[in-house]
């Protein structure tokens, strides 16, 4: 297998988010995209003329619109620029950042603008997502993120009482974080005192997956500016270095129809590969914050073990002991995560953007105290796409 090698360093120098809401009737898609682009350029202190290339993406068909990148040109500032469209389902936002990293690190472009968007309320997500699976073999089993399997797996391993309590603990922790994030879409004001009640009264979706556990449907867009080391000096914000990233994709094990042995998850595979080639043996100790794409409280819970290369019930113990809280050893999703805010084509980029804001130290009320030097961000998409991205405050590592 070929080795990945960067020609030069790439950094995030601008971050732009829109308002997130269940309905953005006040803007059409072009105007919403523009809000994120404008905010990212203003944040970087750059003009649209400083951008060499644009990568654009959203979840295909979720607005029931073909080739939205063409329509969005005016909002993107794409006039006369090279533009690529990238769409990898829920992972889209992180794939856009990975692509921008590659485009800059390769030396092809000095400054790349990555833009992810979604207006879920304009379309019909079920219509789009059902089309994802092979109609002859798998379509009847296709559910997207609305799946009870992770709840079943957690409960099967740790029992009903501990499993359900951990999932609701995770959910309330996320809401506590979202309450501090002015941009978070859903802020419910949940408290741990309400855990017992929520475990029983929230509407059941599939098995032990309840409405309270599930991610939101949001309208919104996010943009980041990625620049080379030299171009980064022109920006007014301090650079956040993209140290390395990995993307993993596996379709046929969605339902594991072909095997009886559960394969290694794409989350663990991605973490093993990325940390391995960067010489990171203890990710819990190394990273100061983790922005994780958590489509539901159950998946978030289960994936912490995978991403952090933990064994047994180590992730549950860490959760129960508050280690993932905003003031814990490894804060997870200070932003409130995907359960709070989920404009899908932008969601995975939000993970990277929020992690970068943590490194810059300007996240605001949900800023991790004590300074963040090493941040991790993940993306997740339909057929178990997993993206994992490492961000650094300082240029002090050896390139892999």
């Amino acid at each position: 297998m070929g080795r990945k090698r960067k020609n030069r360093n790439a950094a995030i120098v601008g971050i732009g988010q829109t308002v997130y809401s269940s309905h953005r009737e006040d803007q059409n898609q072009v105007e919403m995209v523009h809000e994120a682009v404008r905010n990212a350029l203003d944040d970087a202190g750059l003009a649209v003329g400083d951008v060499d290339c644009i990568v654009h993406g959203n979840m295909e068909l979720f607005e029931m619109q073909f080739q939205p990148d063409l329509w969005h040109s005016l909002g993107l500032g794409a006039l006369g620029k090279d533009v690529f469209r990238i769409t990898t389902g829920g992972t889209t936002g992180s794939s856009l950042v990975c692509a921008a990293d590659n485009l800059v690190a390769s030396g092809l472009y000095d400054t790349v603008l990555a833009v992810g968007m979604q207006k879920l309320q304009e379309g019909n997500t079920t219509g789009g997502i059902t089309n994802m699976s092979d109609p002859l073999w798998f379509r009847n089993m296709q559910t997207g993120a609305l799946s009870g399997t992770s709840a079943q797996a957690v409960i099967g391993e740790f029992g009903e009482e501990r499993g359900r309590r951990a999932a609701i603990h995770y959910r309330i922790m996320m809401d506590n974080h979202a309450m501090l994030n002015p941009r978070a879409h859903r802020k419910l004001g949940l408290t741990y005192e309400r855990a017992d009640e929520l475990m029983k009264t929230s509407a059941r979706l599939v098995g032990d997956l309840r409405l309270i556990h599930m991610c939101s449907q949001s309208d919104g867009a996010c943009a980041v500016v990625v620049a080379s080391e030299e171009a980064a000096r022109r920006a007014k914000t301090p650079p956040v270095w993209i140290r390395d990233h990995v993307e993993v994709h596996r379709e046929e094990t969605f339902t594991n129809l072909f095997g009886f042995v559960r394969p290694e998850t794409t989350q663990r595979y991605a973490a093993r590969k990325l940390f391995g080639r960067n010489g990171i043996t203890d990710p819990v100790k190394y990273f100061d914050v983790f922005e994780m794409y958590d489509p539901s409280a159950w998946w978030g819970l289960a994936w912490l073990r995978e991403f952090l290369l933990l064994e047994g019930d180590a992730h549950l113990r860490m959760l129960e002991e508050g280690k993932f809280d905003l003031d814990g050893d490894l804060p997870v999703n200070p932003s409130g995560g995907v359960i709070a805010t989920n404009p899908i084509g932008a969601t995975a980029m939000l993970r990277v953007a929020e992690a970068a804001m943590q490194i810059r130290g300007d996240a605001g009320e949900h800023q991790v105290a004590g300074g963040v030097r090493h941040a991790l961000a993940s993306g997740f998409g339909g057929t178990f796409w997993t993206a994992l991205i490492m961000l650094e405050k300082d240029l002090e590592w050896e390139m892999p």
Partner: protein
Amino acid sequence: MDGGADKEHCFVVEARMALPNEYFAGRTGSRFLTALRDEKRILGVRCPSCGMTFVPPREYCERCWSKIAENWVELEKEGEIVAHTVVRYEDRHLPKKPPYILALIQLKGADTPFPHIVEGVDPAYVFPGMAVRAVFAKVPVNTLMGIDHFEPL
């Protein structure tokens, strides 16, 4: 055998997709539609730095990125045909019964044309530069069909 491929006993899985969707017109687009419907006025936005007047309106100037959404100007209800075609096939999604003329029309005072329907002239006699005026819908409509069609002056 056709094209050299053996296609005997090969199944085709039949499928049909529904594409229900909405379009959020936004504040700027909605202002245009409201003026058309309630006041029978056609509004555009003008960029103060480029001097360009855009119809349909947009929040930002595509040339200089100035915010122009509030720089409303009223346009004349007359303009000229920039280009046209004739719709001759019939389908239930079409706004009019074919054949009808679909034209790009640039109103006086506007720098951009927008598409609409031209009636009251034989398609054979339509030409670029032909002067036309807007005929408004008799009942309120929440789309561009607030103008029912254009007709020759």
